[in-house]
């Protein structure tokens, strides 16, 4: 029997829904699926400060407060005390996983009990959309009750919220290029990617209108 060769790229959440290219660029807004994003979920019963100290040795700056996010590669988001998401490139995730496992095992050993930490690869179960541009906070404000317009004032941070009945982690970080003030990454369940995409795309025109009318640089 002929064997299908193992693919190097996985099927992305929007590809699975038949949505290509998973990128929308319009005036004041850009939405794209980050197909190369990889995610690890770290969930631990260990003392967070101790874990933070241990992971600092792996170049991971672990935030301790809910809604905090630190770092870039990987980006570490604190979802709630004892629960984090680590976001990186998909091809870095396996290496990151291997790097963290022994550190966590050592920490567990020191407590005398095993299975106090779970480190799971969530890359396949989740999708990531990136929103940028002046209208991005308006677009998000259309589908979530979080104050995204104050995002820049709050600096890099993350929130867990609901958008159109979907649980979404929103990670705000300053844009790397000067052209775009706001960059938001939406991290959510893979199975609803097509629905959220449609909701965002449908909402774009009104968000553009709002940005044009109310954005602070309207003068």
């Amino acid at each position, binding site marked *: 029997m002929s064997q299908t060769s193992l693919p190097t790229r*996985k099927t992305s959440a929007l590809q699975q829904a038949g949505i290509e290219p998973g990128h929308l660029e319009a005036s004041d807004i850009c939405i794209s699926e980050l197909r190369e994003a990889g995610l690890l*979920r770290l969930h*631990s019963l260990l003392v967070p400060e101790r874990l933070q100290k241990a992971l600092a040795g792996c170049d991971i700056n672990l935030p301790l407060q809910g809604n905090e996010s630190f770092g870039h590669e990987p980006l570490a988001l604190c979802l709630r005390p004892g629960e984090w998401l680590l976001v990186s490139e998909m091809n870095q995730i396996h290496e990151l996983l291997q790097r963290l496992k022994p550190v966590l095992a050592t920490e567990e050993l020191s407590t005398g009990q*095993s299975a106090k930490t779970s480190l*799971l690869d969530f890359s396949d*179960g989740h999708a990531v959309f990136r929103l940028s541009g002046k209208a991005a906070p308006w677009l998000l404000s259309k589908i979530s009750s979080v104050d995204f*317009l104050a995002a820049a004032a709050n600096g890099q941070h993350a929130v867990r919220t609901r958008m159109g009945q979907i649980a979404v982690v929103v990670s705000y970080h300053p844009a790397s290029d000067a052209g775009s003030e706001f960059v938001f990454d939406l991290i959510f369940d893979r199975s*609803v990617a097509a629905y959220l995409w*449609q909701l965002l795309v449908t909402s774009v*025109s009104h968000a553009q209108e709002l940005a044009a009318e109310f954005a602070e640089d309207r003068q």
Partner: protein
Amino acid sequence: MSQALPEQANRRTQGGYIDRSRLLNFQFNGRAYTGFAGDTLASALLACNVQMLSRSFKYHRPRGVFTAGEEEPNALLEIGEGARREPTVRAPVVTLFDGLVARSQNCWPSVEFDVGRVLDYTHALWPAGFYNKTFKWPNWHFWEDTIRRTAGLGRPLTEADPDRYEHLNLHCDVLVCGGGPTGLIAALTAGRAGLRVLLVEQGEEFGGVLNWEHCELNLQSGREWVRTLMLELVSLANVMLLPRTTVTGCYDHNVTTLLQRSSGLNWRECYWTVRPKHIVLASGAIEQGMIFRNNDRPGIMLAGAARHYLNRYAVAPNAPVVLATNNDTAYQTVLDLREANIPIDTVIEAREAISPALQLRMKQLGVEVLTGSRVADTRGDTAIRELSIESLKGGSLGRRECKLLAISGGWAPRVHLFCHARGELKFDASSQSFRPYRLPKNFIVIGSANGTAGLAECLAEAGSSVSRICAELGAGGALSDLPSIQREPIAGGQIRSLPLDRSKSRQWIDLAHDVTVGDAELAVREGYVSVEHFKRYTTTGMSVDQGKTGNLNAFIALGGLTGQDMAAVGTTTFRPPYMPVTLGAIAGPYAADLFAPKRLLPAHQLHLRLNARIEDYAGWQRPACYPRDTEDQEAAIQREVLAVRASVGFFDNSPIGKIEVRGPDAAEFLDHFYINNVLNLETGRVRYGLMLNERGIIIDDGVFMKLADHHYLLNTTSGGAGRICEMLEEWWQCEWPDSQVLIDDVTTQWANFTIAGPKARELIGKLGTNIDLSAQALPHMAVCQGKLAGLDVRIVRVSFSGELSYEINLPAGFAGYFMQAVLQAEAEFAITPYGVESLFVLRTEKGYLHLGSDTDGSTIPDDVGWGRVARNKSTDYIGKRSLQLEANQGQQRQQLIGLKALDVNQVMRPGAHLRFGDDDKSGIGSAGWISSACFSPNLKTHIALAVLRGGRDKLGEIVTVLDEEERYQARVVPPVFLDPENNRLSL
């Protein structure tokens, strides 16, 4: 001077703030009319001298325009056509546009001649609450249809709404409700202090009364002053201005909802949810009507509204005009009308005396002021033409010809939003009104909404109150420069209760719902003397206007009838929404395809390529079956079922819930949730389990497996993962917070494919694996990990089909790859993809329980054959105590059984009820019902699972099946129809 248009007979050639260069054509009741840009529908109709616009709700009496705002109780029209038809819109707030089509409603055949008027002539038959006591013979249902068809105002839409509606959430420091002068100063003060401000105005333009009253501020006209202020507000980047927006409700924690009407074509309405730190209510006040006989005719209008139409829209009323009032503000109408050379010679003044200044002014104008008097009655059919006057001390004061009767019963603070936010009102004897008393947190009321009289006083209050908010929020709090006021409208609009003339019943207290003094008397006579009871009995204040111009009249009437003052009568409760909100706005974008999230399988596209018939199962879009060529669904299902039993089938089971639980206390923690023993499960083994709630009811089922020490994976029902995960979290956080467990929902991380059938093992072997698949190494109810088709997988040997079956878990991103790899083996194995409907047939043949079909909100383990396991478990679990209740014991509960129709060709359907032979004669209700049914292609007959009272003791007995009108007989059999020895499972 502009040229007068003949069709706009009442339009003045000068004045007003309309654009006479832009003529707009519109239709009303099929007739063509014209108006100008800047008009409302009401002003345009009045300009065209259309007095009668509609018929009243109950008695079908002629009605005209009564107000100039959203409080309008009379001029409720239908506008638009087709799917964009909108019933019961208030003519004064509809902005006129070219091509507008409007119609009267609640009349037939026309508004001029309405057959329904017979209800007015026979009004004695229809007092308040008549429908509760009159139509008892022969019974209510005999009359119901006729009454319901007669009741109501507009016609509901039947077509789908073609328009788009938007939603928006917003946070701000200060939300200012009301864009009148007070609101403008409030917004400017907060805006200058750098706070994030949202200023909301219901109308098209900001400025409120300054746009049409004769005012002078800072030596500018009111309108000019507003324009100057707006220039500054627009320049402040931290201030958002929202015209055409109504604040519809204030809720806990200052959450406020707004309804914005679009000025463009992209969307129709936007529903805002605003979370401000502080709310400033500057909503103004509403002028109230007066109670007298036949006070509802077209041509009777609030004095402020008459002034509004004159000054803002240059609409001259039909003359002569008479004014009836009990307060000073209405005299401004006299002054404005006289300034416009419109005849008004009589003022019917309820007070015994007016101020000397006013008296002198009226005298100079030659206006007769009849103090201590009131309107006794009015005459006229389609519009008022004459009124009679009486002294409050008794005695007639004669009659007057009258084409417009301007009335003013005083001004009531517009406190609805304050009440939504649970603010407390208190009757203020000095202003004779209910004023805000106990403020909700971070909520202030300013200006006339607070009962403050006078423009200067209102502006000063706005500046100082908002400065305090600024200081509280650490934003400076500099007081805005208040304007000097050279001219302002006459202030002093206190409400005064007049003695109720109880000899006349046909005096309207609520125009919108046709509630009269007679209704009020009846309510009081029948004991409804509490204001809340009174409201519900008479339905006053319960129409679309929610009593904005009628409530105070109702309180006055109730006070007059019960001998109480207004303070003792109290108020009713104002509830959201302040104005009707369209369902489209509430739904927003969440309609049609976006109504609810649709969850897609990781290999969704491949299923489509296989011609899958996709259906929704608990939010998941899954293949029901895969019809080939001309097959219908039933044929496809039968083919797929036979293929699984004969060879091998392939099923995408990815939605099955997957929850990982790990931690030193994982086993003990999970043991609380299952009726089955978790503690003695060995690593690598799988067990089926039932989860119960505290009442012992089954809430989920599925297998759980031990992957390693302190590490378990639970499978839940498809679509149940989120619910069960939340339940585990809740119990952990609330009951066992010291348990050392970690709970992770990994449902979508893993795709799950089932390969089932006698050739399943052979097929998996061909895919290339390092796992020993033999029955000894991987027996039924075991789990292992390894490589398959080059992927890291977890294989669980469990079955929901009754066949040799492997569930293969692999990273979801490789689902498509794996599915293609499997289907490549089709030629060799005749592998058949099968859908959910086929799986349901397979599991029904095997008698496997399907949660939600074979169980309901009362099913306990014993009902489905798991009683012994539940009873024998020694450790405690959720629901265990409830199972010991008497109601959960005994053999008379409804138990899961199988059914076979005596006629093998008889189609059985879920939902059909079962009766024992004797029940049928005695009329005893249902003994149970069919919970699952299908045609079994393997048994070549229809089979069913059912729940039946005492069913396990009835094996072999005959029951009657009632399926709507159909009756047939079936035999009670064990629920397992196929392979009861499980030989196929243990291959």
